[in-house]
């Protein structure tokens, strides 16, 4: 069976037709018609086995890769499952997602990682790649079975205690040294718990002072980023900074990269657009960790994404059951949905403003994340011979987000009723469409 994508603008540049056969990009044609498709027609089953997607006016991107997703299974299947999260991911244009380890039980063994991996393959909509915990039970003290997770069928390469910071410098150093044996990377939730109270729930600043909400200062993130940069230099290991949220962190990362230190970073769509003043109504839908920051941080994050200081956009998709958000603000759960809206937000904020091209979007939402996670077969260039993981985007489509129509089981959607430009039309995983015309196949 083969698939033809007609007239797509490849990464926003030249327009071409793509022929996909056996899950691989077989031909890229700018002249109209395919050499091998003709042969296939005459010799075997003919045109009935060829699906054609009219991609006139659409941009083709290598399938999107999310470095940071919470799928909640096992443990909180009322909020999300690997299947429902996979649906949301496919609708968002993703062909691979990394599932964070803070489930119940925690993904801190090879068996646990294989289970997530298998559930992902069973759902079959995106490649679900488990992230392993750095420390046992996310306890922050003893190393989890990093090597066994790496040797498992899931081939775990990214480790993270996300939700918590690997705070103890001794533990962080040992983990960084240890993962060198198998080329791992630690994705750090940079937040020094000693620089904020246990109930910190928002950005510490003028608004938190007025609202009487306990806050996290930006420096609680920045001091850990700075420490980890120096640990990365010392150990020669890779550190990935998850959800960078402040201008100060950006400065440190820029400096580190200039020194040649092996550090990468991601930013979430919500930190590129939403600001701390949304908290004025105490609506827990805007409660997220790291917190929404002021305008000046948002501006710095956009600049850093455009100039390559920040390598990737990652959603930090964090579904929560309704009753876990319907508490007083300080008591409510942290996190917001992001998989289905990420591309639209990046389109609106970065492409719409002229700060980035679609080729840049391919870099920050597919190629760099795939490289950081070591995912073979993802993050390609849409060239012949590569696995056909492809996302088609209508750059001009106007979307009004409606939380009720989400494929996620949860509704903690901060984008509800927001108007965004740019939408995913189709997603193709190894030659098989998972999404067509904006709906699941």
């Amino acid at each position, binding site marked *: 069976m083969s698939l033809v994508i007609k007239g797509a603008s490849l990464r926003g540049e030249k327009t071409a037709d793509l022929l996909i056969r056996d899950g691989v990009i077989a031909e890229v044609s700018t002249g109209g018609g395919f050499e091998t498709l003709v042969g296939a027609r005459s010799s075997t089953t003919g045109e009935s086995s060829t699906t054609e997607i009219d991609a006139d006016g659409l941009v083709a991107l290598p399938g999107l890769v999310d470095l940071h997703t919470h799928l909640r299974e096992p443990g909180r299947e009322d909020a999300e499952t690997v299947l429902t999260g996979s649906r949301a991911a496919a609708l968002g244009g993703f062909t691979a997602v990394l599932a964070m380890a803070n489930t119940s039980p925690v993904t801190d063994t090879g068996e646990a990682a294989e289970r997530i991996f298998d559930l992902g393959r069973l759902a079959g909509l995106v490649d679900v790649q488990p992230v392993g915990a750095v420390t046992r039970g996310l306890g922050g003290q003893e190393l989890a079975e990093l090597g066994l997770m790496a040797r498992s069928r899931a081939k775990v390469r990214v480790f993270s205690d996300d939700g918590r910071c690997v705070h103890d410098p001794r533990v962080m150093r040992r983990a960084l040294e240890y993962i060198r044996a198998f080329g791992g990377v630690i994705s750090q939730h940079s937040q020094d718990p000693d620089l904020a109270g246990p109930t910190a729930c928002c950005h510490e*600043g003028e608004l938190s*002072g007025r609202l009487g909400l306990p*806050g996290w200062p930006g420096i609680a993130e920045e001091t850990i980023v700075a420490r980890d940069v120096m640990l990365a230099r010392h150990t020669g290991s890779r550190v990935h900074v998850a959800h960078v949220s402040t201008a100060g962190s950006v400065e440190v990362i820029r400096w580190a990269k200039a020194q040649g230190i092996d550090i990468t970073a991601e930013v979430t769509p919500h930190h590129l657009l939403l600001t701390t003043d949304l908290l004025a109504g*105490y609506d827990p839908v805007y409660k997220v960790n790291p917190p929404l920051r002021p305008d000046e941080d948002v501006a710095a994050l956009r600049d850093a994404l455009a100039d390559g200081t920040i390598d990737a956009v990652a959603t930090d998709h964090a579904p929560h059951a309704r*009753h876990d958000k319907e508490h*007083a*603000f300080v*008591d409510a759960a942290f996190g917001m949905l992001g998989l289905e809206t990420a591309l639209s937000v990046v389109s609106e904020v970065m492409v719409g403003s002229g700060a980035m091209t679609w080729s840049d979007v391919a870099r920050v939402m597919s190629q760099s994340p795939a490289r950081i996670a070591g995912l073979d077969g993802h993050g390609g260039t849409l060239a012949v011979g590569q696995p056909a993981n492809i996302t088609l985007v209508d750059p001009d489509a106007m979307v009004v987000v409606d939380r009720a129509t989400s494929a996620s089981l949860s509704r903690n959607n901060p984008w509800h009723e927001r108007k965004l430009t740019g939408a995913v039309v189709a997603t193709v995983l190894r030659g098989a469409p998972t999404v067509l015309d904006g709906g699941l196949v």
Partner: protein
Amino acid sequence: MNKHLLSIDDLDVNDVSVLFDTAAEMHDVQRRSVKKLPALRGRTVVNLFFEDSTRTRSSFEIAGKWLSADVINVSAKGSSVSKGESLRDTVLTVAAMGVDGLVIRHGASGAAQQVSQWTEAVVINAGDGMHEHPTQALLDAYTLQRRMGTLEDKRVAIVGDLTHSRVFRSNILLLHKLGAHVTVVAPPTLMPAGVTAWSKDAGFETSYDLDEVLPDADAVMMLRVQRERMNGAYFPSAREYTVGYGLTRERLAVLKPDAPICHPGPMNRGLEIAADAADAAQSAVLDQVSAGVAIRMSVLYHLLAGEESGA
């Protein structure tokens, strides 16, 4: 007047003046031997308290009873998270019993505002975390106005743990509305985040030096310092706090003799306020307590008397 009283921002100057006028009438009722008025007969007011409180709860309870409302106290101590029930469910459960007014005290900032979005009942904020305590600010301003005639152009010093104080946050809004010039005084560690920008926007002054502020003050409001802030967490010792920021006997001598001294209670005598200051003729502490009942009667009356019964 707005339906709810969640924040001082719900009131304009005219609302405040109406509330004070009614409070003055209620104050007279308090001195009668028979105190009961029929204004809220048939109305049900629930004091829904998620946090321990003696004086605010009993003040609201007396206020409601003197207005002939049926007042029920519901103590829901402990966070709803630990009980496995969401705040929304707790509130809907209580409201479903047929409640006209919900007086809510919660340890979390913003709780009263959230609750008001979930129920048809009138919501009165009796203190939400570190955010606001509007009836406290009303009774403070009412007390000061009765003592001083007016707050217009008066200098008021608010001294103490500003970071954790809902009394301060409500007072700063109300005193500004009424034309007073406010200076807040605290050690830097007890100043709220972003106070420099905030004070510029909101029109108040900040100082770390009580001795510089006190001689010019026309009134002084001392805030309670919680025990858990001590032991080196926010300042080195109780002794050091008193030397820097307590209204001591020595400082009492510097204060204008007619300047009222307020404290929302409960007082830590010897820590933020010396006994001499608490018991001085210029102390307004007990006036505040009696004004509290009058103000809460006034608030309950204005928010509930005109409403159709929810039953």
